[in-house]
């Protein structure tokens, strides 16, 4: 097992302690025949005490969806992640933390995850990790846990409660087909591969979420990190969370919830009731917009130029305001950075409207 000192340490979580806990839980889950298993950070009673009356505005940066291959196989994706790290390190002042949005590896290979971990070590600010389907479905999260700890956790920061979910749980489609681990991974890796199941958060994780949120008042601003969008956009590309309604129901009582999600590799904005959804950019490549199901609030980014491998890609920042809602900054490489402001989603798209694209995808 890799020495713990190489792994990303996060400010708010003692990973070693939870690893001990999770191993026991893993054992229990396997023994009871439940699988694919997931273990969660045990709910810390002390956390419930932190319901915030006041939020101190803060900034964090994000890097997401790097889809790394080993350097000798694909230099381009590695270069892009290195550029994102350089970007984030050059921010002045430095953000409170850097959030990694999932899909660090492309095919879940141990070497790919290790390469990613090594590159992210160069980030000056503390890093928080989230898992994506490309990281998970080769070994069902074994290497991920070894490098980054538990995929599902929460913490408080400056009056906001933040939760990281594993929202790429898929119903078993591989056992009946007699697929190998690699075949399963290749199936999930294809965005338009219809054999895989839709993403979901799952019953057990929803139960965990309810318990985790139990100690917080409705006033507490929430930020939920999720790889899949936590709403239903386009099933054929798994821009979809199957139990989105149930998850949204758990979040319904809170006055302001912000969901920051990955997977979609594009500028995406949505609002459902009290929940404001913002997508993260990918460093590796941009996806086109779905032919149907697009949220009204989304003003699409211009269709990327294939000649420029960085066009449509980038990293970004999230500026958390005093009420817990956010300005979402898309730092599109080689383009003017674009901000989807707090006022835009707060006003249901009436104010602070971002500029329209002059090149739509079609």
């Amino acid at each position, binding site marked *: 097992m890799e020495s713990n000192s190489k792994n990303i340490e996060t400010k708010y979580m003692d990973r070693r302690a939870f690893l001990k806990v999770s191993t026991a839980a893993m054992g229990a889950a396997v023994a009871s025949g439940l699988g694919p298993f997931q273990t969660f950070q045990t709910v810390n009673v002390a956390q419930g005490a932190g319901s915030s009356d006041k939020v101190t505005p803060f900034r964090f940066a994000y890097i997401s969806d790097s889809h790394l291959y080993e350097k000798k196989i694909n230099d381009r994706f590695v270069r892009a992640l290195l550029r994102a790290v350089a970007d984030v390190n050059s921010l002045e002042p430095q953000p409170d933390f850097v959030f990694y949005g999932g899909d660090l590896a492309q095919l879940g290979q141990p070497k790919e995850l290790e390469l990613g971990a090594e590159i992210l070590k160069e980030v000056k600010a503390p890093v928080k990790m989230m898992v994506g389907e490309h990281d998970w479905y080769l070994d069902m999260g074994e290497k991920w846990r070894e490098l980054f700890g538990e995929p599902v956790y929460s913490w408080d920061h400056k009056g906001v409660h933040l939760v990281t979910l594993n929202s790429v749980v898929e119903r078993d489609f591989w056992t009946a087909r007699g697929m190998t681990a690699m075949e399963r991974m290749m199936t999930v890796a294809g965005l338009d591969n219809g054999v895989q199941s839709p993403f979901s958060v799952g019953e057990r994780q929803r139960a965990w979420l309810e318990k985790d949120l139990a100690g917080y008042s409705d006033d507490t601003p929430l930020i939920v990190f999720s790889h899949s969008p936590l709403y239903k956009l386009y099933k054929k590309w798994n821009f979809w969370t199957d139990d989105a309604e149930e998850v949204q129901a758990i979040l319904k009582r809170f006055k302001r919830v912000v969901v920051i999600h990955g997977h979609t590799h594009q500028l995406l904005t949505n609002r459902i009731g009290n929940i404001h959804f913002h997508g993260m950019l990918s460093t590796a490549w941009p996806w086109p917009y779905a032919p149907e199901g697009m949220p009204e609030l989304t003003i699409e980014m211009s269709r990327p130029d294939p000649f420029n491998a960085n066009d449509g890609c980038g990293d970004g920042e999230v500026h958390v305001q005093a009420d817990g809602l956010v300005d979402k900054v898309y730092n599109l490489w*080689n383009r003017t950075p674009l901000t989807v402001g707090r006022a835009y989603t707060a006003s249901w798209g009436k104010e602070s409207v971002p500029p329209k694209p002059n090149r739509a995808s079609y």
Partner: protein
Amino acid sequence: MNIIRIISIYRFVRVPIVALVAVVLLPLFNTKAVVAEDIPKTDHGAATMEYQNKELDRLLPSVDVSKAPSSFDDVVWKAFIPEDNSMTAERVALGRKLYFDKRLSADGTVSCATCHDVTRGFTDQLAVSEGIKDQLGRRNAPTTLNVTLLQIVFLDGRSPTLEHQAKQPIINPIEMGMPDGQAAVDAIKGDAEYQAAFKKAYGRKVNYDDIGRAIAAFERTLVFVDSPFRRFLDGDEDAISAEAEEGWELYNEKGRCMTCHPMNPSNPLGTDNRFHNVGVSARHQDFEGLAKQALKAMEEDPSERKLDELALSTDMSELGRFMVTKNRSDIGAFRTPLLLNIGITPPYMHDGTVETLWDVMDHYNKGGEANLFLDGGMEPLALTEEEINSIVAFLFSLTDFRFAEENQRQFERQRAQAKKKRPLRDDDMAFRLKLAFEK
């Protein structure tokens, strides 16, 4: 409109590569071999205005200036002529007179032709240009050859038209140093010849705007596209060497040159009229720091003139297009230069720091210089030495026949230098063994 044959990108002509790389020397016009040292010089290293004028007579055929040159698409050519400055022989003659007139400079030593010298590729073949009082600027002088099809002028696109551009160097403190346009007018308005010329050309008294118009009209006649490559496209299979042909194929494919340097019948120049950060500045600048400085300076004095000054006389010159648009994405971006006659317009890049075309290829081969604003189209190309030679051979075939001697001279000089040193070469980067941004 000429029927130009575009070579299919699928054509794989494998002709044995000739050991002797040669640019075709067809003495079409003057057979007298003029050696560079024979040319009489004046201030700032330029050839004398008389000599340049004589050369120009020799080089430029007498044509009807109101018609599109035969090598251009006439619909496209016409679209670039502004309505208030249609081409007439009088305007061109006036512009030519002004182009060579040193009286337009504060100390009478600099004319347009000082830095855009007929004998030196219509540029000055210096890294950065020298103006009045021997002051050095920050930018390499682009050539005035074939500028009529440029959509945006100056390396940072400060000028939308040739008319506008011609007026800027005259009042720039480093270049020609006149305090304002009126001073330039005062310098020549007493001259009866000018009075008559302006009357004939524009029906007006001597004025600064018309100075810009006339110079622009003259520049529009500087059409030099009759190169070996053009002949090749027109159907002469032997016009360029096999190596250059290979280079043309690489230009379209592995070299990825075509995307920023497109060449087609409507736009034969080899520039996309866009701005790209290819990393040349990054070799010696701290961009983020400079960008913050620039924003502050411009808040204090947002005039166009201040911008012109800053562009040429301070470190902020390295920020390029950003100085005009203030877009973060334009930091360090400069306009793609045109490639016609590139062989005779060294040194290269916006600051003239890249000396030979082999160095240019080394720069692109390794994917430019990594910096936070690098254009994502810059990728390491993994070109072999042979492929680099082919592309360079192709680039030298883009020079008009009338400059064939100068082209040959440049080719030999650059090749000799490239054989001795290749400061920008980095095979590890070129072949993707080491990656940009990697520590």
